[in-house]
């Protein structure tokens, strides 16, 4: 077990290192002077700025400095806004994104799983058909179109929720629903397939042959076994949530990291964007790491080599 954890840890750290390195060298590939792009300074001032931020040093020196600051969890400074550090931005805006993502997970995972179980239980029934429709909708209609339509319907026409902003708890409901739609359909589809797959396994036949009641078979044998593989998807889902929040936060003007990230792209604030990319990658890699370990702990069939 310790060997397995150590192996996963090494792979995770290697991943973070790879992302950071790719980010670093990609920034250096960018043409032009970032200070002239961001705020029109004259050449001498821009050069002074380059000197100040250490951008005139040899690349390897910059790389070592960058890695060193990453080791100290320092993601660098914004180029577009003087004196604003990436850490500051993360501390300020990440809690909002995290709240949104956690709410979406708390709402999306149980709902999706439940719908999946119900639609597998009654194949071809009303729930099955309507969840299939939801799946098709979330796969075919781009997220921002779907979110805009929900915004129009639920907040403008019906007036149930505020259309945009981030003040009271009421403001969080609509973005949460929009963010969890993809998750609901994904979980529902996955759970449905797994329930049907597990339904054909020999151990279910054994359970039936033992004369267990249908409810007992479904709850203690089928659902429990179908739930296990869903855990592996959690890491990817967290990545999906962070990415999905880019779109959702922009639509509902939620002051989260995603919206800030999009702004930093539009302002050509490269160090900010790269710092946020590295940060988000760390979050995703950490989530994957935890899920991998968790999976081994809960599924006794997984053999560690």
């Amino acid at each position, binding site marked *: 077990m310790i060997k397995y954890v150590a192996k996963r840890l090494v792979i995770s750290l290697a991943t973070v290192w790879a992302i950071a390195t790719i980010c670093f060298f990609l920034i250096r590939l960018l043409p032009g002077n970032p200070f002239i792009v961001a705020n029109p300074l004259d050449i001498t001032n821009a050069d002074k700025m380059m000197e100040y931020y250490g951008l005139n040093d040899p690349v390897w020196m910059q790389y070592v400095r960058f890695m060193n600051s990453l080791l100290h969890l320092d993601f660098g400074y914004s180029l577009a806004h003087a004196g604003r550090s990436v850490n500051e931005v993360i501390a300020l805006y990440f809690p909002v994104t995290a709240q949104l993502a956690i709410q979406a997970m708390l709402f999306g995972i149980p709902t999706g799983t439940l719908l999946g179980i119900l639609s597998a239980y009654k194949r071809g029934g009303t729930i099955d058909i309507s969840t299939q429709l939801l799946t*098709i909708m979330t796969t075919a209609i781009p997220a921002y179109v779907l979110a805009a339509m929900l915004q129009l319907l639920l907040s403008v026409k019906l007036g149930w929720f505020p259309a945009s902003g981030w003040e009271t708890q009421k403001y969080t409901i609509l973005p949460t629903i929009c963010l969890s739609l993809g998750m609901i359909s994904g979980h529902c589809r996955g759970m449905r397939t797994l329930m049907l797959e597990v339904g054909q396994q020999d151990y279910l036949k054994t359970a039936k042959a033992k004369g267990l009641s249908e409810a007992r078979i479904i709850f203690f044998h089928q659902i429990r076994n179908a739930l296990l593989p869903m855990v592996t998807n959690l890491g990817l889902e967290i990545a999906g949530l962070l990415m999905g929040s880019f779109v959702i936060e922009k639509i509902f003007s939620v002051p989260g990291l995603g919206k800030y990230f999009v702004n930093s792209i539009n302002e050509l604030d490269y160090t900010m964007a790269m710092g946020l990319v590295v940060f988000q990658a760390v979050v995703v890699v950490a989530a994957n790491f935890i899920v991998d370990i968790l999976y081994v702990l809960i599924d006794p069939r997984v053999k560690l080599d």
Partner: protein
Amino acid sequence: MSETTSSRKLDFTPVGENDRDAEQIIRPSTRYWPEVWKRLFRNKLAVLCLTIIGVIILCAIIMPFLSPYKFDEVNLLSSSLKPSADHFFGTDATGRDLWTRVWIGARASLLIGFLGALTPFIIGTVIGAVAGWYGGRIDMIIMRVCDIMLCIPSMIYMILILMVMGGSISSLVVAMAISGWMGSARGFRGRVLQFKNKEFTLAAKTQGASAARIIFRHILPNILGNIAVGLSGAVPGAIFMEAGMAYIGLGVTPPNISLGQLSTDGITYFMSASKFHLFLYPSLVISVMIFAFFMFGNSLRDALDPRLRDEEYNAKRMRKIKRVLRREARRPGKAVV
């Protein structure tokens, strides 16, 4: 008594009176691909989706030529017009004809869809073939690189590459290639390992075929079905991805246009009654397009699954048996089975 035997007869049809007939195969013998096509075209949804895809591709090719307007032709006199006989989809704020723009955008989206699905697949196949065929240290290194790259969310590669290369169809395709090759490399490596020691590979080897020939002429055709399903799922995925990137400001840059970009531009107007068409039509076309590709991929997967053939066959037999049993049950005074 006679009733029970009649239903039994259906369950266990005697193959033949003499021994020679016993060797006969009862089911009609079919070859794999004709059977797949037959099953695909029997599926009404698949045919509908294929038609939609065909119509959209045709429109994207010819409509810009037929239209009297150019997609980037600004005409301030006819700005923000509602859909009419002159402008089927209306015009935008600078008087550009939306009908022409939608089909030019569909060209870009289709290109991104097809290239964005094909390029990573081709790269992944070659890398996977090398890893699987040569094995050893090369395999180990390639697979570790795969593992690490798979851990990084694809959106991050996309954002980084688009920021560096700028928004265009080619940079989107490059970004998709770099972020998407790992899946098909892994899959194809597994297949190569699976078929590497089969007899037909050995036969080809003894005849002096090169590694590339064996892999692409002998092993690849064996998994054509899986590839078709994978690709038909990747095309709508790439189109969808492009739309998402367009929304966060990393799509193709003006004056070029894609459907994702058009619907993103239109979304600012979705609450205004006079400009709603700017939001509606591009979003509608892109949604219908993704839907058609997605459902076609699903139908293709069903059609390629040989197990379904047996299921269909059995279902037909079961229906027949039930029908006979029902008919028997309606006869008064007779016991059923």
